[in-house]
């Protein structure tokens, strides 16, 4: 039952309960948010629940996750760091810039940064990337999971400043925070249109899939800047 690597740094573990996603624990012996630790052949893995993480749901939905061992990742909407901790596992030789706006959740995130060597916490509003441009360098991947009505605009603003020419954007769109009452399908269509043509920097959407049943009314998007 050796783990199968489904994407760089992301593993599928088969055990009695069926298949589960996991990442190799960068800080062995510590569980971040109560997730299970599994030891296999001298390695420790942390079980990754797709119901608690948009990125894990994207992996299960067969997205091509463009994160490598040495990737630099800009993570917008880090919250208390559940998913960030797994991204930090995936990029042992890279770095994660974790942007979060709420001081309350930042408190938890800092606790995580204290024990993990590759996370840089940034308490800032993702709407205003100019306010952290003196900290964040160019990155290979932007992962965004912010519950804001102008999600696609935030993605564009940050990609313009920080995303490498051939870098990738992974985006989770939450329909309910754009319009609480409209039909999610319509909201998704409109957001994809906005990403492709709505701003001065256009994206090419490579892949988009709904994240149900793990996250209701969420759309996962993989996109690249159109050159």
């Amino acid at each position: 039952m050796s783990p199968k690597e489904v994407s760089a740094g992301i593993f599928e573990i088969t055990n009695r309960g069926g298949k589960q996603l996991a990442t190799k624990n960068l800080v062995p012996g510590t569980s971040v948010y109560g997730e299970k630790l599994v030891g296999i052949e001298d390695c420790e893995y942390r079980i990754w629940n797709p119901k608690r993480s948009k990125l894990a749901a994207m992996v299960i939905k067969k997205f091509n996750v463009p994160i490598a061992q040495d990737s630099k990742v800009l993570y917008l909407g880090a919250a208390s760091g559940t998913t960030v901790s797994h991204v930090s596992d995936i990029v042992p030789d890279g770095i994660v810039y974790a942007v979060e706006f709420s001081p309350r959740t930042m408190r938890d995130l800092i606790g995580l940064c204290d024990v993990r060597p590759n996370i840089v916490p940034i308490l800032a509003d993702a709407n205003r990337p100019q306010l952290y441009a003196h900290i964040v360098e160019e990155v290979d991947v932007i992962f965004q999971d912010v519950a804001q009505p102008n999600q696609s605009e935030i993605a564009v603003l940050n990609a313009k400043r920080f995303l490498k020419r051939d870098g990738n954007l992974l985006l989770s769109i939450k329909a309910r925070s754009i319009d609480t009452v409209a039909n999610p399908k319509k909201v998704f269509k409109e957001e994809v249109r906005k990403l492709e043509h709505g701003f001065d920097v256009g994206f090419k959407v490579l892949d988009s899939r709904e994240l149900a049943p793990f996250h209701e009314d969420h759309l996962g998007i993989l996109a690249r800047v159109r050159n």
Partner: protein
Amino acid sequence: MRIITWFGTLTPGENGSVAEWELFPKDTDALARMLVQPKEPGMDMPPAGFELRAAAIECGFVTSNDEYNELLRDVSIRAAKYRISSGTPDMGMIQAVEALDDISETANTLSERLAEWYGLYFPEVGLSSETLARFVAKYGSRSGISPDDDLYGKAASSMGAELTGLDEELVKGFAGNICTMYDTRSRIEEYIVTSMESSAPNLTNIAGALIGARLVSMAGGLERLARFPSSTVQVIGANRALFKHLRGRAPSPKHGIIFNHPHIRNALWWQRGKIARALAAKISLAVRMDVYSGELNESLKTGLDKKIESIRAANPKPPKRDNKGGRGKGSHKNKYKKNEKTGGRK
């Protein structure tokens, strides 16, 4: 062009190199303080595509990628900690309001339990909640009731069981705990009143300390409340009714938590919406005065009283109900039908 980075100020040269630089002291704490400070005027942020890491190595600030990562991480953690510790002053009050709700709920639940429990031993007691808790904590079993107490006679002829030994100890202790809760609750209330009077005198004057504090708590701070339009202030706390309305299934809510204000609660039903609107407008003005000037202005209160007086005078009688059932739910069916084009919004 002079640009600022987390490790120093630079003048970029040709093709991505750095022409001149002035580095900050290489000390975690000093660098973190620079990050937290507001930016000096005349400094630009690095343009898109600027290679911060390469620049830091070129200037000799750090010698390797690993050193860059490590230092930046330490500095950012320190900076984030500084930012968090400088929280806003009304955070304490917001917690107090939440604590007040929690403690009321808990005290009520426990009081109900006490009523059931003590009811086994003295069903005729006829007291409830705080008075019952104080009574039980004071006397314990029926035999302990002093002859001066009004309930002495009832206790002597009670049909309840005897309360003795361990049972008495337990029930009495339980009641004592409930009393402490009520004490804490009144202390929290006092705290809210005094801190509202000092931090938001106008809001307290118009809305009352507790309603004012609730508004601040739900808005997430005095300053945020000051930025809300008064139409929002009017319906804060009526979330369910508001979303029902936005989905096109109901009329708009007239009032949120400001309903608890005596001006609205005691108003005649057909005047309530109008008074709520006037009150919300004055609350908005009051909060803005509190945030931006901080001085008490009595004219707001007199203005509000006058406005309410004129609303009462202009609407002395209830409007005529139509014969389909007036205010009943059915009458909104067509009037508030969802507008497909705007998704229910007007």
